């Protein structure tokens, strides 16, 4: 899945796979509830597995659970565990392990606020998790939730041995067993000979943290590494043109967002927001800011190639129309926006802002870029200032729309209250029928693109979490 | 042994290491043999073997020079070249080195070439002497003969410039400056020679052999009779006049170090009073107190009977005006970034009454008195020769027409001929302006040639005082006597008739 790295390790039989990550830190830990940076997020799926995997379309597929079903429209979910799965210590996987792992994820004390606990807040109580027999776990929800299996695929829902409290030597069921972890520097895992699914060909995986962009690329090209995460998109063409290298593209792993507070001037004038959306040359953003990798954004979190896509008309640049809109809004000579705070840890965001700045300038819309590192961005600017920009990971529409576009969403960027949007988002959860869900989300997308102030110029490939913390 | 004391030894190795290294290379000696030999060598220069364990910086200047001599003797050389081996040493150390050298040379049969400025020292050390001028040997011969009967005008002029502690003599500078290089086409000394004739300018004279194995490079050596040195004896000092400066029971201290304790002295109007003594005896300290650079701890300083405030900052302009100071080293006592004119104008604007024209007049007169051309006014000190610089310093002191000038070692560090010229200038100015001079020096010869009164200082106290001829003639204090004994001097010759030029 997009957010959970890739365990289908590539490479020849035997040997060591050397991976470089960029954001290791001294608090790296393999506690599944503390997975925040890509360094850990890359390491964890080698050790642990979840009940469910998400496929390319973000639809749940069996993993440790052989099958999962609801009989009452989403209020009760029954998961049947796969047989013959053993932990790295040789003990078999049992429903008790699932109960323990998921219960702990819901415990605010243990998880200090992981997003799974937030997602299932007031929906699943610890008492609602039961081992039915030696193969079955039943989740009794407080209210119907048709997307519950998606929740069981997130990185916080991974299964480990019941009773584990210290994750210094983590034990899971994954394709590799833990060897060592030096926080902020290095993670080493070796082949799990008893892996249930297929024969693992690699002997070892070493994930190393290298903060400097160019050093990571240089190491890759110098043969010091096999797989590098968080390659600046600018370097990608370079690598692609070198012999023996491929870029593993995940077409729409991420999306760029510019958040505008719709309750303050000038973003409280819909024409201004429309003018901004019109003045952007989205293809140029992809070409010049994203190294040519990416697809046009329709100002919604759903990319065109997604199953859920609403088939909206493609936004095209129209500077004249934008100027006209500005004039209508009372800015015939253009206007100066409040400074846009950009998350400086993300090269894509900073590149986007610099290109967008030039494009908007042509329409008379001027703004300054204020870079801010993740250390303060999330606390001081995100959702707080009038305009800001960062990227978000691709998520299931249910999850992302409820977070960002619902009036009561915790990441609600526009701050506008729109009952119709809320209703369209909630409608999708009323049914288990995929077609009806798609229809509801299409309606939501149309409304969001039309009314919400959030600008989504592009979706682009990328590995997870260059932002420091797992906001995304 | 190169010029500059102490530099001949490596600063970071012990003396023993340096002997071992040298002896192993030159004589193939092992450690123990080398140490034995080193001790012998040291003994031959009167240094205890304990010095072997020392680093060079732990030896005194005299010891160091003797150790360096021993080290130079270690490879058993046949010829020893010594470039001013005693310059910078005090008179006692000079004596020791000279003695040791003579002995070593005699015992080992080494030939030594001893390069020196100090004619008096040479007269005690050397057998033969060669005099150089402008890159040429101008005269050679046995030392006694050359120094007593110079045949070259330069040698004679040089001898006339040397003051003597043995008798009160006037000294004479040589006009002009040495060319500093070989002069082509004429006698190198012609430009400064009082006897230069057309023939001197025709070609470079050849070195001619004369009697007693002597040689001389002068075309007129037959015509000139320089065998007799002019009567340089100076007139007896003038009778005492009234007191200009009176220092009463002055004590000076730097923090806890007392540099002068209860010193009293007086300087008579229009006379030169000298303050002599070994290095560190407190001479400069006293001079600085008088000149107002230092606040004495106690005592009284009176100028013309009027007491000066102890705190020099409280002196009035008038009081500052009447006491001026000249430092030893004009390179450091003149601001290198100010022209001579700027300095003199600054001084006159402060101390000379009258308008601008009057001040310029005072400057012009003073410059003439110190024999400097008005062109120097636009020069920076760095563009002047050492002698010229010292004249500028003298002019800066005298241009104010002070009552008293304090001269702190104003001639040490100068060439003898320059020194003589400066002393003459000083004497001339003093006579003309009636200025009193407090003359601080450790050169007993210079003092004898210029001072009317002498005070001898030791360890911050005056140990002896009196009129110059009395102190030099019959020193009462033990220390004064030892000082006088140690000074090398050219034995005086009985003067006869004045210089005669056979052909005028």
């Amino acid at each position, binding site marked *: 899945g997009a957010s959970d790295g890739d365990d289908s390790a590539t490479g020849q039989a035997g040997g060591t796979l050397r991976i470089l990550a960029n954001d290791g830190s001294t608090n790296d830990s393999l506690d599944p509830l503390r997975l925040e940076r890509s360094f850990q997020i890359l390491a964890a799926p080698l050790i642990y597995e979840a009940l469910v995997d998400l496929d390319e379309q973000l639809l749940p597929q069996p993993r440790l659970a052989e099958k999962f079903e609801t009989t009452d429209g989403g209020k009760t979910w029954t998961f049947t565990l796969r047989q013959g799965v053993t932990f790295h210590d040789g003990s078999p996987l049992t429903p008790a392990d699932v109960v323990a792992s998921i219960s702990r994820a819901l415990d605010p004390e243990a998880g200090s606020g992981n997003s799974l606990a937030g997602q299932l807040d007031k929906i699943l109580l610890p008492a609602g998790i039961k081992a039915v027999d030696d193969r079955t776990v039943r989740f009794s929800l407080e209210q119907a939730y048709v997307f519950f299996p998606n929740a069981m695929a997130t990185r916080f829902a991974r299964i480990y041995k019941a009773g584990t409290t210290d994750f210094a030597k983590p034990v899971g069921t994954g394709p590799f067993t833990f060897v060592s972890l030096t926080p902020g520097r290095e993670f080493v895992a070796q082949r799990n000979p008893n892996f249930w699914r297929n024969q693992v060909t690699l002997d070892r995986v070493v994930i190393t943290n290298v903060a400097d962009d160019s050093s990571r690329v240089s190491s890759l090209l110098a043969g010091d590494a096999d797989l590098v995460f968080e390659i600046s998109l600018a370097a990608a063409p*370079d690598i692609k043109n070198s012999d023996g290298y491929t870029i593993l593209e995940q077409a729409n792993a991420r999306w760029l967002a510019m958040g505008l507070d719709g309750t303050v001037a000038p973003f409280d004038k819909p024409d201004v927001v429309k003018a901004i959306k019109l003045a952007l040359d989205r293809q140029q953003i992809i070409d010049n800011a994203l190294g040519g990798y990416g697809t046009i954004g329709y100002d919604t979190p759903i990319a065109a190639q997604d199953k859920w896509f609403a088939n909206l008309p493609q936004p095209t640049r129209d500077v004249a129309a934008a100027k006209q809109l500005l004039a209508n809004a009372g800015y015939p000579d253009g206007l100066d926006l409040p400074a846009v705070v950009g998350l400086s840890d993300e090269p894509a965001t900073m590149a986007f802002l610099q*290109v967008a700045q030039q494009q908007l300038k042509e329409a008379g819309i001027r703004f300054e870029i204020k870079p801010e590192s993740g250390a303060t961005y999330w606390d001081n600017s995100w959702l707080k200032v009038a305009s800001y920009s960062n990227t978000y990971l691709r998520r299931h529409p249910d999850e992302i729309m409820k977070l960002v576009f619902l009036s009561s969403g915790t990441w609600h960027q526009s701050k506008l209250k729109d009952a119709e949007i809320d209703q369209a988002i909630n409608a999708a959860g009323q049914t288990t029928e995929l077609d009806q869900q798609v229809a509801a989300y299409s309606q939501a997308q149309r409304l969001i693109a039309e009314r919400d102030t959030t600008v989504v110029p592009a979706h682009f490939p990328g590995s997870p979490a260059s932002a420091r913390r797992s906001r995304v | 042994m190169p010029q500059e004391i102490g530099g001949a030894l490596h600063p970071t190795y012990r003396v023993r290491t340096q002997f071992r290294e040298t002896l192993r290379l030159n004589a193939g000696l092992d450690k123990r043999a080398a140490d034995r030999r080193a001790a012998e060598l040291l003994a031959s220069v009167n240094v205890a073997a304990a010095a072997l364990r020392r680093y060079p910086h732990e030896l005194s200047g005299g010891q160091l020079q003797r150790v360096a001599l021993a080290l130079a003797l270690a490879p058993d050389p046949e010829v020893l070249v010594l470039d001013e081996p005693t310059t910078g040493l005090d008179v006692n150390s000079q004596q020791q080195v000279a003695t040791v050298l003579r002995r070593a040379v005699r015992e080992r049969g080494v030939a030594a070439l001893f390069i020196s400025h100090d004619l008096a020292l040479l007269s005690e050390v050397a057998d033969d002497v060669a005099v150089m001028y402008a890159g040429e040997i101008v005269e050679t011969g046995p030392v006694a003969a050359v120094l007593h009967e110079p045949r070259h005008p330069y040698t004679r002029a040089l001898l006339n410039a040397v003051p003597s502690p043995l008798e009160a003599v006037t000294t004479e500078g040589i006009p002009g400056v040495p060319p500093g290089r070989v002069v082509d086409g004429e006698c190198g000394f012609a430009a400064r020679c009082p006897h230069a004739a057309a023939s001197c300018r025709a070609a470079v004279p050849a070195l001619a052999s004369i009697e007693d194995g002597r040689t001389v490079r002068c075309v007129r050596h037959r015509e000139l009779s320089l065998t007799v040195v002019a009567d340089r004896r100076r007139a007896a000092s003038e009778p005492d006049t009234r007191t200009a400066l009176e220092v009463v029971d002055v004590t000076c201290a730097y923090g806890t170090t007392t540099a002068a304790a209860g010193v009293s002295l007086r300087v008579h109007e229009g006379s030169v009073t000298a303050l002599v003594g070994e290095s560190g005896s407190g001479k400069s300290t006293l001079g600085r107190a008088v000149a107002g650079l230092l606040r004495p701890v106690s005592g009284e300083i009176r100028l013309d009977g009027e007491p000066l405030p102890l705190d020099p900052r409280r002196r009035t302009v008038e009081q500052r005006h009447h006491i001026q100071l000249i430092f030893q080293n004009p390179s450091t006592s003149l601001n290198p970034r100010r022209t001579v004119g700027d300095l003199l104008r600054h001084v006159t604007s402060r101390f000379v009454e009258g308008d601008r024209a009057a001040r310029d007049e005072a400057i012009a007169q003073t410059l003439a008195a110190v024999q400097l051309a008005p062109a120097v006014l636009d020069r920076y000190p760095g563009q002047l020769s050492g002698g010229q610089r010292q004249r500028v310093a003298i002019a800066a002191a005298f241009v104010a027409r002070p009552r008293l000038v304090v001269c702190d070692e104003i001639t040490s560090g100068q060439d003898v001929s320059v020194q003589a010229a400066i002393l003459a200038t000083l004497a001339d100015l003093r006579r003309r302006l009636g200025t009193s001079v407090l003359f601080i020096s450790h050169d007993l010869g210079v003092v004898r040639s210029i001072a009317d009164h002498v005070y001898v200082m030791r360890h911050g106290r005056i140990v002896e005082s009196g009129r110059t001829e009395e102190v030099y003639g019959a020193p009462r204090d033990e220390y004064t006597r030892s000082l006088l004994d140690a000074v090398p001097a050219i034995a005086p010759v009985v003067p006869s008739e004045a210089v005669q030029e056979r052909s005028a």
Partner: protein
Amino acid sequence: MTTTVDTIAAPWRKRSAASSVGVTVGGAALLLALGVALLGPLLAPFDPVAIAGRPRLGPSAEHLLGTDQLGRDLLSRVLHGGWSVVAVPTLATLVAFGIGAAIGVWTGLAGGHRDLVTSRLVDVLISLPPLLMAIVFISAFGSSAVVLVGVTALFFVPRVVRVVRGATAAVVASDYVAASRARGDSTTQILRRDVVPNISGQLVVEFGARLSNVVMFVATLNYLGLGVHPPQPSWGLMVAENTLLLRTNPLAVLVPAALIAALAVGVSLVSDRVAERLAVDVVAP
């Protein structure tokens, strides 16, 4: 007796071969860097922040140095990018000098306890590593030009104080100042006539040495992302921005890097020469 050794190096003394090559090379480098920095904005063919073409183009007739990752004209960015590398260090050095020289002269003149206390304090302040402190400060106050100048100046003040104090103290201990004192010159007069003219040479040398240091210091801060903000061009930042282009278009990195080096080298070689002219002994760059 020896003749007086001329301790004052004279303005007219012959210069060495090394220094004459040095001043030629240094002067040329400095002129080049300054020329680009000051006149560059007038010559730039494109707006340095505008998207001028496809990204990552190699050198061509239209884009002489190619384009960067965002498609901006690299030549225009180079031509505009020197301003901050010249202005910030110059300003910072001037500020450091204004403060440092004043304190240095003051303590050097005063001597005594005031001097002792200041010297000890300076010893201590000098031991604080500038880059480390700058990182801490800039992450505290943000990285506006004002902060950059302030932080840079702050860490170079003690260095200036030390040199100026030393020079002043040497002058104050000299006989000619003693003579001025005996003459009754006021402190102001001594300052004007004796101290300032005699330390000005060292001040110039020190200024050159500091400036050269500060250029590199500021470039390094820019490189670490603690200086100028994108999209404004700056040579230091350009080296960081374009590192990934090194393989395909080395000029994108080499040109700004070379200009930084030219500036620093030029300043240091030329100030060496000025020092020689002013007859101050230079031991260090």
